């Protein structure tokens, strides 16, 4: 019998030590949590601790817990039971099974409809669903693509920060004001209030500036003649850019972006990287019609050797139509319209989604 090594070298994604020992240790951890939940819950329910903390000499015959107090008291043992129990069930279900066996079993459950399957284009495993991209008809062309603007998220972030920070500033200011009215001066609190108020004002300025930026340059619309897209095919794309300003330039192109989500310690991080850019068209010195918008129609061709769109739990390869515009007196902005590119046509009839076979 070989004892486990507690400090082992990781080789890529493979563990060098015993999977059985790893699962055993994991199971032991969940069993301890489950046991702690039972003991803690029993102590609370059976009343092992039956004295009044305010009066230790008295014996408590009946406790006056309200129902919500019971709920609050039982929250910790119930959480321990749920976390430990679900972990134990998972360990028992996967005990002795290989990585492939577990994945195949999960796939079989998904095929049976018992677990929510990740959305995918029918007949193309790993290709993300395009339902959300095709539910808005265009004015001229077939579909109007939804906008995925990173600037909108920045705006939301600035707004939330300004709101929460200034709430803290108001609490501090009320405290300082109450002291002053009461005739006392807390210089420490006042000293704290000044930098806090400065940051709060800065947050509001950033939020207002972002809001003005995102609303003053006008909306961007992109319509496309068909979807999903296929490598080697050309599609009509209609661009509409609103705004009353002069644009020094507007660029429209295709981009392929890779997304990888990974864990670093206890943090989960996502890295995005554009690995391919296909310029489509560039307009210079654009002046939208007053009260209207700049409109253009171009042909976009998906490269013959294009990788198809791909999405799994932690990795993705996504195509998008990107509009970059540089207004005359404002900073450059980017607006992103995701699209789905299908794989090249298969040789003969496609295989069924996932073949899972077990000869028990």
């Amino acid at each position, binding site marked *: 019998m070989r004892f486990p090594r507690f400090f082992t070298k990781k080789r890529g994604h*493979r563990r060098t030590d015993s999977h059985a020992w790893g699962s055993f240790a994991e199971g032991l951890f969940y069993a301890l949590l489950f046991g702690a939940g039972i003991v803690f819950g029993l102590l609370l329910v059976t009343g092992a601790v039956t004295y009044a903390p305010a009066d230790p000499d008295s014996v408590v015959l009946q406790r006056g817990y309200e129902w919500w107090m019971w709920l609050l008291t039982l929250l910790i043992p119930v959480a321990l039971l749920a976390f430990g129990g679900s972990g134990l069930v998972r360990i028992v279900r996967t005990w002795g099974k290989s990585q492939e066996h577990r994945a195949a079993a999960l796939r079989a459950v998904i095929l049976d409809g018992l677990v929510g399957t990740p959305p995918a284009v029918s007949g193309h495993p*790993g*290709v993300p669903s395009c339902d959300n991209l095709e539910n808005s008809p265009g004015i001229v062309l077939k579909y109007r693509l939804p906008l995925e603007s990173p600037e909108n998220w920045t705006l939301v972030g600035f707004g939330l920060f300004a709101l929460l920070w200034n709430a803290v500033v108001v609490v501090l200011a009320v405290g300082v004001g109450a002291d002053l009215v009461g005739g006392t001066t807390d210089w420490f609190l006042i000293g704290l209030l000044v930098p806090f108020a400065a940051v709060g004002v800065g947050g509001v300025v950033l939020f207002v500036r972002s809001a003005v930026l995102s609303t003053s340059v006008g909306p961007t619309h992109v319509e496309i003649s068909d979807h999903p897209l296929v490598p080697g095919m050309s599609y009509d794309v209609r661009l509409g850019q609103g705004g009353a300003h002069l644009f020094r330039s507007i660029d429209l192109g295709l981009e392929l972006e*890779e997304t990888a989500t990974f864990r670093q310690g206890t943090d989960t991080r996502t890295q995005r990287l554009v*690995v391919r850019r296909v310029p489509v068209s560039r307009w210079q010195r654009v002046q939208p019609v007053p009260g209207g918008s700049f409109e253009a129609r171009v042909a976009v061709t998906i490269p013959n050797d294009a990788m198809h769109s791909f999405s799994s739990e932690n990795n993705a390869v996504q195509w998008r139509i990107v509009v970059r515009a540089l207004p005359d007196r404002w900073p450059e902005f980017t607006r992103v319209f995701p699209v789905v590119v299908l*794989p090249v046509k298969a040789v003969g009839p496609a295989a069924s989604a996932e073949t899972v076979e*077990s000869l*028990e």
Partner: protein
Amino acid sequence: MNGVDADHGDDHVPAVSGQLFPRIELRFGHPGRGYEPGEWVTVEYGIEGLHGERPRALERSALWYTEGKGEEDLGVHAFERFPTPETIDRVVPEGTFAFRLPTSPLSYEGVIVKIRWCVRLRVFFESGRDHVSEHVFTVGRVPPSVLP
């Protein structure tokens, strides 16, 4: 405990010292191991070096997995498990494995995301240890990505 025999380049993890693991030879129907989506893949394999130890079970699978910066994702396309003496005698020490490829995902050599297809054979022994042999092949002809 596991032994790993990776046949996709120079990645070879030796067996744990003092223990003998079998050698699995696998031949693809296409010498270049390059396939098109929807195509049939047929492989022949032979397991040598069992040293009289009887396998308890054998698993044959065709799957894709991701490599790169992100956490590994894995999708099993075909999976067969032979867990009984009656069934395992049909597939050990040699056998064939055939499956039709789906339309996606295609093999992809990106910068931070890579998608690889492989055939895995996993032998489980009575002693409790197992040995996996991985053989990579490509699906489609997507060129590698390079930073613009």
